[in-house]
């Protein structure tokens, strides 16, 4: 999910990464809406609100909404900084760091909300700011490593692309195009996962409250550990590579032939 970069990624890599991260974003967005009365994974609405608050001349709200948009932008900026600067040395680490930062942010929101939150406006705004930064990190990472094909924190572009693809499928030449079918599968998987995450957050909100951010963090840990597990498994199998040696008598000489292990 995380190791490969840009065009070397398979459809399966993108579907796995897109589904899990969209599920997390859906939960975070509805969680923030129910707990703080504001969205945290999409900024289109915040741009509209920013414009409305500018018109009304509400400086406080302008400052708050501006800072949220800025932090979403900054999250994406930081994410891609790690990807482009560390990718050459260790692509897995470069892709895992933004997710680790995101987990820290969401765990902080969960722990602070559960044990320290006094429901003041300033606290609400700081926690929302942290969530927008976390969503910026996630969206920046998935978009960056997938060559801009996986964006998981909002569904405007996804829904638009799905509409275009579904209209293209009215023509047979496009219906048989594997790349387009793969793209449609990816977008449907992202949309469905986001929706499932959002619905789950809605149902579990009363019982879990701020604990839902632990669940989201767990999903992100799965993304990180999945690749780490695969990397370690590969390394393990390489170390234990068994050499099968065939001995064959060829004209009085012994020919030794190595066979590749099953694992490789």
């Amino acid at each position, binding site marked *: 999910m995380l190791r490969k970069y840009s065009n070397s990624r398979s459809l399966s890599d993108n579907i796995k990464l897109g589904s899990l991260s969209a599920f997390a974003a859906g939960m975070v967005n509805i969680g923030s809406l129910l707990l*703080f*009365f*504001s969205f945290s994974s999409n900024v289109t609405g915040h741009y509209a*609100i920013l414009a409305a*608050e500018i018109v009304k001349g*509400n*400086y*406080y*709200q*302008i*400052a*708050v*909404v*501006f*800072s949220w948009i*800025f932090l979403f932008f*900054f999250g994406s900026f930081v994410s891609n900084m790690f990807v482009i600067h560390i990718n050459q040395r260790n692509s897995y680490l470069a892709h895992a760091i933004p997710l680790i930062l995101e987990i820290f942010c969401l765990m902080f929101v969960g722990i602070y909300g559960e044990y320290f939150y006094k*429901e*003041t*406006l*300033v606290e*609400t*705004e700081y926690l929302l700011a942290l969530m927008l930064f976390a969503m910026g990190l996630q969206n920046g990472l998935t978009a960056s490593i997938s060559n801009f094909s996986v964006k998981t924190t909002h569904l405007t572009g996804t829904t638009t692309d799905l509409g275009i693809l579904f209209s293209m499928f009215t023509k047979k030449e496009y219906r048989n195009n594997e790349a387009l079918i793969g793209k449609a599968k990816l977008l449907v998987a992202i949309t469905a996962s986001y929706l499932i995450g959002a619905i789950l957050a809605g149902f579990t909100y009363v019982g879990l409250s701020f604990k839902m951010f632990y669940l989201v963090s767990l999903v992100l840990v799965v993304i990180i550990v999945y690749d780490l597990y695969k990397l370690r498994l590969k390394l393990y199998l390489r170390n234990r590579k068994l050499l099968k040696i065939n001995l064959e008598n060829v004209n009085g000489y012994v020919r030794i032939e190595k066979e590749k292990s099953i694992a490789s």
Partner: protein
Amino acid sequence: MKIWIRYIGFFTLGISLFVLLISMSNNPEHIIEGQWKELVWEYEKVDKNDTITNDYDNVSDFVKDVVGENLVIHKAESWTFKPNGKLILKGSNYSKEVNWTIKGRGNILEIKYDNNNCEHYSLTELSENKLVLNFDTDTHTRGIARLTFEKI
């Protein structure tokens, strides 16, 4: 100009803008503190003929009775927001203490009472002298009601 100077300049500009806006503004939690008197209740779907058939002095009283019948604020005429998160609702022969918080970007007033029952109101307008609350009501068919206050 070196690229990193441009980047530092860009982020400094963003942070400065935020600091400037915050310094020019007042926190809604501070503006709302104090005593407010109800001026008028309005409801987008009110049938003004009902105020004639029923015994009401004005449309506002009628709206308050119809729209607010299930709300904790129904009998209140003056609202006192205390800094400690307490809200005193007072009316004729009525007094109730509830909890208040402001959520979202400072646009949602949350009132909690009796074992964490919650009511939410949109803070449509909040200035030193005027407070306007909007809320969705389930009365008959769903509609939007507006409640206007002036500071005492």
